[in-house]
């Protein structure tokens, strides 16, 4: 190969992700010299437009950051504000919130596993193309995703931007009777989710791994959704209130989403791989067994295998939803009384794509004075860029077209939500 010759692989807009954006990898003399994940989706200024709004509007407003994981935004918002007001949520309402989160986890993960990520492993442009040769798997995936949506709808009124969540609890809680049809579907879904784990575990993986700094919530008794301390693989163990002492956000010109890093400048990874690897022992026995059968150990450092981890988490969410519904008694009151008071509050919950941090400062009337939101995808930007650099370096032998597709796949390993993070991806690989 001639030195200094620039070989360019370019994709104008990355497909099968939520939102749009681009990427550049430069290779000179056989070495990757530069990797840029560019996020140029237009900013929508949520942190600014929330100022001066009433606390009660926060869950409805922040859900509009993302149509794929609105429940995560609602959950982080209400938990943070409840902390600011000193409100305790009773066990019954807490379980119902967990049930709602299970629905979103199923819906979001199955969309990604079946329609957005699996086509990369099987060599199709899309889930729709894949359906022609794999109709049973795609139909199963769509029906499984539908169960997640049915669960969110049963509690929240609709699947996208549900309406029932409020500070203090819910506007209305479902009756046992109303959960029965979705319970029936969840019983089918357990088998479908298990089949999905087996299906994706048979895919071919490029055998790529890195020594990530995983960051996720950890709870004394549960696989984390709504609550837990923030822990990392290297021993961090703090309350959400200390998040900003350990993580920083930085504005880099190539991205309309702020980049996050550890205080020492290092990258970290949030999302299914981190959650799974830091909480394997909190998964239900059926999910643990499915993971082992799929060839996963208690820690997974291969981002391409995140598709298996998402399938395992889907199975867990189905199992957990069935457990919660089986024990469900409608709470006497849909919400506890809320008395605003001046103060600050923050919370972290586990969105499907990883930890989602919200911080609010409120006045005595409950008006919002200041907000900070850190979505999972902005936290993963550095890890994504590092993955790409490392992956391209190891696979320089691949043809341009194949390498480009693999790079796209490596980005899709993170199920990036660019709308959340604020934006667009453009993929270019230049090499010389």
């Amino acid at each position: 190969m001639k030195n200094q010759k620039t070989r360019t692989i370019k994709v104008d807009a990355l497909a099968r992700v939520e939102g749009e954006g681009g990427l550049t990898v430069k290779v000179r003399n056989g070495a990757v010299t530069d990797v840029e994940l560019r996020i140029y989706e237009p900013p929508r200024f949520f942190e600014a437009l929330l100022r001066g709004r009433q606390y009660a509007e926060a869950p409805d407003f922040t859900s509009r950051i993302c149509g794929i994981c609105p429940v995560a935004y609602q959950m982080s918002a209400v938990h943070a504000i409840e902390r600011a007001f000193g409100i305790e949520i009773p066990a019954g309402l807490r379980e119902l919130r967990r049930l709602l989160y299970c629905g979103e986890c199923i819906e979001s993960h199955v969309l990604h596993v079946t329609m957005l990520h699996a086509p990369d492993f099987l060599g199709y442009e899309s889930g729709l193309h894949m359906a022609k040769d794999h109709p049973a798997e795609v139909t199963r995936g769509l029906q499984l995703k539908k169960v997640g949506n049915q669960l969110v709808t049963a509690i929240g009124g609709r699947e996208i931007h549900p309406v029932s969540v409020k500070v203090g609890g819910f506007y209305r809680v479902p009756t046992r009777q109303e959960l029965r049809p979705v319970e029936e579907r969840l019983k089918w879904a357990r088998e479908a989710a298990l089949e999905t784990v087996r299906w994706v575990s048979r895919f071919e993986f490029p055998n790529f791994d890195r020594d990530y700094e995983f960051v996720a919530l950890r709870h004394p008794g549960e696989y984390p959704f709504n609550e837990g301390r923030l822990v990392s693989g290297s021993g961090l163990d703090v309350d959400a209130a200390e998040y900003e002492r350990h993580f920083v956000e930085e504005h880099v010109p190539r991205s309309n989403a702020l980049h996050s890093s550890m205080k020492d400048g290092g990258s970290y990874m949030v999302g299914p791989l981190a959650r799974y690897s830091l909480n394997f022992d909190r998964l239900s026995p059926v999910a643990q067994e499915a993971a082992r059968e799929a060839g996963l150990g208690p820690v997974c450092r291969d981002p391409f295998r995140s598709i298996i981890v998402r399938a395992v988490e889907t199975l867990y969410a189905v199992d957990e939803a069935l457990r919660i519904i089986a024990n469900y008694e409608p709470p006497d009151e849909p919400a506890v009384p809320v008395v605003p008071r001046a103060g600050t509050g923050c919370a972290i919950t586990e969105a499907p794509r990883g930890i989602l941090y919200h911080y609010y400062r409120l006045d005595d009337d409950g008006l919002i004075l200041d907000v900070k939101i850190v979505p999972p995808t902005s936290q993963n930007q550095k890890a994504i860029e590092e993955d790409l650099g490392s992956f391209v370096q190891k696979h320089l032998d691949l043809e341009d077209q194949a390498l480009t597709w693999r790079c796209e796949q490596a980005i899709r390993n993170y199920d990036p939500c660019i709308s959340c993070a604020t934006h667009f991806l453009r993929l270019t690989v230049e090499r010389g």
Partner: protein
Amino acid sequence: MTIKRQSKPKLAVWKFASCDGCQLSLLDCEDELLAIAGIVDVANFLEASREVLKGPYDLSLVEGSITTPHNAERIHHVRRVSKVLVTIGACATSGGIQALRNFAAVGDWVPLVYATPSVIETLKTSTPISNHVPVDFELPGCPIDKGQLLEVVNAFLHRRKPLLPSHSVCVECKIRGLVCVTVAKGIPCLGPVTQTGCGAICPAYHRGCYGCFGPVKGANTEALGTVARRLGASHPDLVRAFRSFNAAADSFRRASESHEKSED
């Protein structure tokens, strides 16, 4: 003699400033999606496929509002390659929640979010697609209703007008037999001035409608303001109520501006 095989109509889905929720509604048609893909070519839908077929497109669904100079240009390209252009959702039809910037000095906002404001390229306003190019049909909602989306796609594929209700959420409650949250519980509700399409979900969940489908034709926002004030809502409360997901829609904008000028 050869019979020319009729090619399938081409469907395109475009994104501008938005949360992706409205285009997700198409992927949320779990029971219908494969059938749709059987009768149309999903020719340009980046959220679902990396394959992009060349235009022109028979039907373009446009999500999101115009908030950057680049997108103000790009929408003209989308119009040029689209035979029928339908906007989906509150962002595309009224500017969306990000149109709250239209009521503030957006220059003051950039530093609140970004440390290096000079590299952020943004317009002072968030505007609906119809402010920029001719639009063939507008489907409201934050998010849109997927049943309504299927009706719109079906209608345009068969070259007929979509059959969608044009009454208010208030009327929807009467049709569903829901107890009125305002009358029975004294909860202020935007139902009387809001376009239906959601199925009156909020009143069914014991809360007032918050207007995510935007103003119904002929909305009497003044009368609604009077009732809400009788129930204890302040002028600032009403400014906020009209100024949310469809803040820049004409009648909601006028209502919020009127309450902004009033004093309690």
